[in-house]
């Protein structure tokens, strides 16, 4: 992060070190595969320079076995690295169940973060080290991409769907956080910092930035003020699904499909309610597309999730939504 010229990026996690090892190993292989080409071109250009005497008898113009071997051998070598890189990639797509959940909302041109305790920050993300963190990300407008070079990770943030990313920082520090997908005029300025802190420091930071309400409680507030409770609440007269305990459960739809009530389903039901209608209910839910922002929707999801957590034997906690 500092200094006049750096030639290797910071490493903020064990994963970053693994990826660097992979790249170093692969670089050795491709240098070995390409060195003969570079060396032989120069050697041949000198040795067989036109007009220079050399043994040019019996030049070969084809050798099928040689050609097959230089097709197959490099490919097999690369396949070993393919397996390694694919394994690391799949690990990135399987967040551990005990991850700390943080919501990310990207918009032109800022990053908003919401912690489960209700703390909110802009362009700065505080996380504890040695604790898996899972980001659930939504975009308010165009495609963005959250990129933290020190973690060797990025993930596009796509409007209309949640994407996620998880990491475990291993070293306290302040690291660059940027937008990697071109998102309009101030794309180059859409950045900030990841601040990785020891668990004790993080606890202190949470304490200092605590708001009155947790994220779920803020969602409950919205649930009442936006009128959701009018239909979905316990004493509602309108025929609408009761949302208590619904999170993570299968929902039969009108067209016969069965979907899981995960983050994406709940989001779509709020913003695009006519897309998937729960079986047996009338088509009366209005769209909240122009009323609620992505950060509000994430709060409502946190609230609906919390309704399941309090219920008896709630089967689905964090991490089960994807």
């Amino acid at each position, binding site marked *: 992060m500092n200094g006049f010229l750096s030639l290797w990026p910071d490493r903020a996690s064990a994963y970053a070190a693994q990826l660097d090892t992979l790249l170093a190993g692969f670089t050795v292989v491709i240098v070995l595969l390409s060195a003969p080409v570079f060396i032989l071109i120069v050697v041949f250009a000198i040795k067989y320079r036109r007009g220079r005497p050399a043994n040019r008898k019996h030049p070969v113009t084809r050798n099928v076995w040689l050609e097959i071997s230089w097709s197959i051998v490099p*490919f097999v070598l690369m396949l070993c690295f393919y397996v390694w890189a694919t394994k690391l990639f799949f690990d990135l797509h399987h967040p551990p169940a005990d991850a700390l959940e943080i919501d990310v909302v990207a918009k032109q041109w800022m990053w908003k973060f919401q912690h489960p305790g209700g703390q909110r920050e802009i362009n700065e993300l505080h996380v504890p080290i040695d604790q898996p963190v899972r980001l659930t990300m939504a975009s308010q407008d165009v495609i963005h991409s959250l990129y933290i070079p020190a973690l060797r990770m990025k993930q596009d943030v796509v409007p209309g769907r949640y994407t996620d990313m998880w990491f475990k920082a291993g070293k306290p520090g302040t690291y660059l956080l940027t937008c990697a997908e071109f998102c309009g005029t101030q794309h180059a300025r859409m950045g900030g910092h990841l601040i990785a802190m020891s668990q004790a420091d993080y606890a202190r930071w949470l304490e200092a930035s605590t708001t009155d309400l947790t994220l779920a409680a803020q969602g409950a507030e919205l649930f009442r003020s936006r009128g959701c409770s009018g239909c979905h609440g316990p004493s509602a007269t309108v025929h609408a699904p009761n949302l208590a305990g619904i999170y993570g459960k299968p929902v039969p739809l009108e067209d016969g499909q069965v979907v899981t009530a995960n983050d994406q389903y709940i989001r779509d039901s709020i913003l695009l309610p006519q897309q998937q209608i729960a079986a047996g209910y009338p088509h009366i839910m209005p769209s909240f597309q122009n009323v609620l922002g992505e950060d509000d929707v994430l709060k409502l999801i946190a609230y609906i999730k919390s309704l399941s957590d309090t219920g008896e034997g709630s089967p689905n906690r964090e991490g089960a939504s994807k």
Partner: protein
Amino acid sequence: MTSDHMVDAASHPAQPGIAETAEERVSYLRAGHTLGSWLFTSDHKRIAILYFISVTFFFFVGGAAATLMRADLLTPQADLLSDEGYNRAFTLHGVIMVWFFLIPSIPNTFGNFLVPLMIGARDLAFPRLNLLSWYIYMLGGLFTIYVLIAGGVDTGWTFYTPLSSMFANGNVVLAATAVFIVGFSSILTGLNFIVTIHKLRAPGMTWGRLPLFIWSLYATSLILVLATPILSVTLALIAAERLFGIGVFNPSLGGDPLLYQHLFWFYSHPAVYIMVLPALGVVSELVAAAARKPVFGYQFVAGSSIAIAAIGFLVWGHHMFVAGQSAYASAIFSFLSLAVAVPSGIKVYNWTATLYKGQISLDPPFLFAMSFIGLFVVGGLTGVILAMLAVDVHVHDTYFVVAHFHYIMVGGTVSAYFGALHYWWPKIIGRRYSLAWGRLSAALIFLGFNLTFFPQFLLGYLGMPRRYHVYPPEFQVLHVLSTAGASILGVAYLLPFTYLFYSMRYGKPAGANPWEATGLEWSIPSPPPKHNFAERPTVTRAPYDYTIEYEESDD
């Protein structure tokens, strides 16, 4: 006459222009002197020249945008361009370089000129369609120039939705129209080449005797015809969403932004091979002529062009590893992307083997060919790095990608374009140029190129995102190196146009075959007569049948 006897024309500056030769008097160049005789020609050779002038113009327009960007990147702050200005500069740079230079560059200039000459034909199958294709290209070009004057467009050449369809402020629909129009030019040229190569080969010019440049153009034409319509449809959908609010890609209208990326890359990845396959064909020709030997493993080299074209249609998803597509799809696309590297590897190893026991010339075209091989290897192997899933998660959308595709597109295709220009110039114009200046240009381009783009690999791995003109100060040293390289490169690209232009009047007559190369195009006078061949040639020998030494001959 060997190249060693070529007189350095530049060393006699006081010498008056060399008088018109007998060959020139009857050549295509003198068959009509009016502007109309050029603008309404259906001669493939003249249309090639029209294309040469137009793509060279756009090359320098696109280059001017690059110059502005590199100058702005000298410092971490925005001091030359505004945010908006920088975004418009890189968008125009991309749009112009991809669609108005790289895609038409080799096929429409050297392909147009050489396809009939190499297969022994009078012209392309549809000469007037060929001219129409140039007019369509120019119409698209005029739209682009209008976009430039009207203030530009700020979406990046990729036109990602919903940024392009709902949010961007620039002339998106006009720019998309320009690309939509120029697509038809590509389709017509591809169609023309396919029919010509199938139907107009001279007697005896079997598929196994086709020059490798023709094989690679054939593969390119297949992609042009099959992939370009997808792009046209996709751009039309963007316009529909932007103008009429029809929800295709925008999620708030019920669309899917990733659908756009699938459609766009389904065209644009094969388009990468449209840009590089003709260059691979040129280099096969140059390597054989440089070594005066048959290309090692002709069948493998020819077959690898077709394999690249075929597999190239199945790898588009490697642009979307972090876009939110399924991890399983990503794993398959990653595997296929490794597979497409195999035929490229075959070509490189076979070229190297061709040089073994050759009679290697280091004249300008061959220097360009050898620097092509070096840069293409670096570009190709860094492409394989990018195909590795976990690595791509880190370097996707950084300068690493920028460096990678410039090694392929600029180090590769542009080097091959200049190699082709230096190789066939004596055939096209009928005059020799200064070999010393040619060697100097080749060396400067190689140096300037590496200095410009190698530091960008480091920048990318350090985490410098692309399309940023303000950046953290620790990246500055590498950016300064890159800009320094770009200024060498800029001068080096201008240089050939001076001595080549000079040679048109002051160069010595080239003779029919200045490089003593094989191939039908060298069997006719330079510049070629209007009707190419006095009588239809009959081919009886294999391609690249240079005399090679056997047992009892002495050195």
